[in-house]
Structure formats: C-alpha cells, structure tokens
C-alpha cells in the first residue's frame, strides 16, 4: 500500500457499526474505501446531508447533489437532506461520532492548525472548527511530516483551528493517542523504529507499554 492507503485503512479501523462519520476533503475521503461491507457507517456531509454515497458514474451526475467540496456525489437509501443550521446542529451538538481531518500542524496539547498560513494561504476554516469542537472523536489523518519538516509539534505556531480537541493522530509512521499526560505512541509502522518516529516528531512521544504494529499490508 502507498502512504495514503496505509493511513486511510488504519483510520477505518476506528469506525464502528452505527457510527455517524464526517470525512474531510482529500485523504480522509479515502477512508470510505476501507469500511467492511457489513458495517453500517453513515457519512455526514456538512453541506447538508447524511447518507453520502460514492461518486456517480459520469453519465449520472446530478449537480443538485454535491459534497462539501462542491463535487458531485450520490446518496444512499435512507439518506436525509437538511439545511446548514441542521447540519451543524448535528456536528456541534455531538451527534457525529467521528470526524477525520487533515492538518498543517498538531501539537502535544491536542491543538490543531489546518485552516490558514498567514500571508500565504487562507482557504478559511469551513466547517472544520465546528467539527473539531463538536464530534465525539477527532482523528487527524495526515502524512507524518511535510517535506521533511515535523508537523507534530510541541506547540503549533500557525493559527489554531481548535485548542485541545484532538483525540488521535494517524500517519503512515504511527498511531498516537492524546492523553492527559501527552501524546502516546500506541502503534508503529514496522518499517520504522521508535527512534525514527520520534526523530520525525517534534512533540515528545510517550511510548505505550503495549506498543502494537500497524497493519501495512
């Protein structure tokens, strides 16, 4: 598997039967490909529906039915459409079980920065600030570093998306859980050593007594 596939497949293992899940644009979207067929996971799209299905065939595109990136999608039987206030009632109200987002930076206090680089790129936060505050579980899925530079820091220096809301970070190198004591390394890609993971991470990792191997096949 390539890096993105390793991450997406591992994130999928965090989802449970009956979960309502919001997947961010980009890498997180791929998580949907790894849900077991017999598991009932409902995807929420913050532009206004639950029951997001796969992309349509080219000859079956309905421009009244798009995802939060404005791209045509489909809806599964039992889907429901609603307005943006209801959409964020679901999100902010704690009715989303898991949100999976990318990040520019995260830190050992559970902070997240993913919506702007001052003077350079200001896409806006979209629904991310609400998702991170509202979802029961916040999973950051991203490559471990960016062009060799650490993204998992002692303290974010980009403007925050939210303070202290991250529960889990999943990269191609490792799985880390946010705890009161700090960031705990719970799983590691067997192609790397603990030392290598720590070297690619600015934050200090607490090594779990029960450190497991990530499935990379």
């Amino acid at each position, binding site marked *: 598997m390539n890096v993105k596939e390793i991450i997406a497949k591992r994130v999928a293992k965090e989802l449970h039967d009956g979960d309502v899940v919001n997947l961010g644009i980009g890498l997180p979207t791929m998580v949907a490909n790894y849900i077991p067929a017999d598991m009932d996971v409902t995807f929420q799209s913050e532009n206004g529906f639950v029951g997001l299905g796969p992309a349509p065939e080219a000859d079956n595109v309905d421009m009244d039915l798009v995802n939060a990136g404005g791209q045509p999608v489909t809806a599964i039987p039992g889907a429901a459409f609603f307005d943006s206030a209801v959409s964020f009632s679901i999100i*902010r109200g704690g009715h989303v079980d898991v949100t999976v987002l990318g990040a520019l930076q995260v830190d050992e206090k559970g902070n997240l920065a993913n919506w702007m680089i001052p003077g350079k790129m200001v896409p*806006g936060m979209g629904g991310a*600030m609400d998702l991170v505050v509202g979802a029961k579980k916040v999973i950051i899925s991203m490559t471990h570093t960016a062009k060799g530079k650490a993204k998992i820091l002692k303290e974010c220096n980009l403007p*925050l998306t939210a303070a202290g809301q991250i529960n889990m970070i999943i990269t191609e190198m490792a799985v880390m859980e946010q705890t009161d004591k700090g960031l705990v390394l719970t799983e590691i890609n067997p192609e790397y050593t603990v030392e290598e993971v720590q070297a690619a991470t600015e934050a200090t990792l607490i090594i779990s007594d029960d450190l497991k191997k990530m499935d990379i096949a």
Partner: protein
Amino acid sequence: MNKIKTLEEAMSHIEDGMSIMIGGFMACGTPEKFMDALVEKGVKDLTIIANDGGFPDRGLGKLIVNKQVKRLVASHVGLNPEVGNQMNTGELDCELVPQGTLAEQIRAGGNGLGGILTPTGVGTVVEDGKEKIELDGKMYLLEKAIKADIALIGGSIVDKKGNVYYNKSTKNFNPLMATAADLVIVGAEKIVEVGEINANDVMTPALFVDYIVEV
C-alpha cells in the same frame, strides 16, 4: 399580490453598497442567473454574506472576479483564488467565519435573537474582539446575529404564493437566508400553482419570500 417578477424587475432593487446574502454551497443552490445579472448590472461596493467564495466562473465568485465586492463574509474561500489575490492587494475585506457559526448568525438574524453562544472558535483567532461567556464550566463565544438588505436564494420548486421546496443538497444556506433579509428574491427553477407543494413539505413558507423569478 403578484410576487412573480422578471429578472430585470427583481434586480432593479439591488444598489451599490448593499449587503446581500447569497444562498448556495460551492455554487450548488446558488441562483446562477442572478449572479450573471448582477455582473451585467455592474453594482459595486457590495457586502456579500455567503458560505464560500464560489468558483471564479461559477456562483458568487463571478462578482468577486468582476471586483464588485467590497466585503465578503464567508467560511471558505479556497476554491476561488481571486479572493486570496484581492485580500492580498487590499481590494477585498474578507471576514472568515466558522461555517456553523455563520449558519447560526444568519438564523439568529432572521428570528429575532440577538446572538448565540457557541463553543466553536474558543482558543482561536475567531474569538478576537468577541465577548466570552462561561456557562456551567464551559467557555462560549457570543456571536451576534447577522441581517442583510437583500437575500438571493435558489429554489427548486416554488409555488405562486412563494412557498419554496429545495432539492437535495441545494438547501444549505438558502432557507436560513430567506428569513434574514429585508427583501428576499427567489430564483425558481420551476414555478407551480399554489397547493402543488404538500404543506408538510414546504421548506421556506411563502411569508418569507418577496419576489419570485423563474430562472
């Protein structure tokens, strides 16, 4: 009371400097003909309140490319690079707001609330200049209601009285904005007789709608 107007009649109410809410999400649900009409009309110095900055060639993005917008209040502008460009040159004042907060602010404007208390944005730059209120040990931002002079919304099916039905994900901000502006103009993909939309399924009651334009 005939609410059905021509595109020209309806757009004649829009003037330089007005604040306009534009429904839609990444152009889905945005009344595209209204955007084209505004570009042609050339009204300027507009304040636009919308979910996003659209695309350069679709949705309200056209108004930005045509430099008709002085101020944009939106949650996401990443798909229209012209927004970033005009922010950098200082031509466009852009306020970025969390999407759920924007939805609640517009809803509050339409329903007579002064504002709402949300946990979203606490500990971020979004809280700058806002009142913070602690309730039962949790911190919230006081986000104030928003209203506008005009709301331009897109409706899939509209009856002659002004009851609106939205198809699929075209709903998004449209029903909220329909409540929060002095003048509400609906671009109707289809106009039907009164009674053809089941009263249970009306998504924006006619009382919120001032003008209907077939688009």
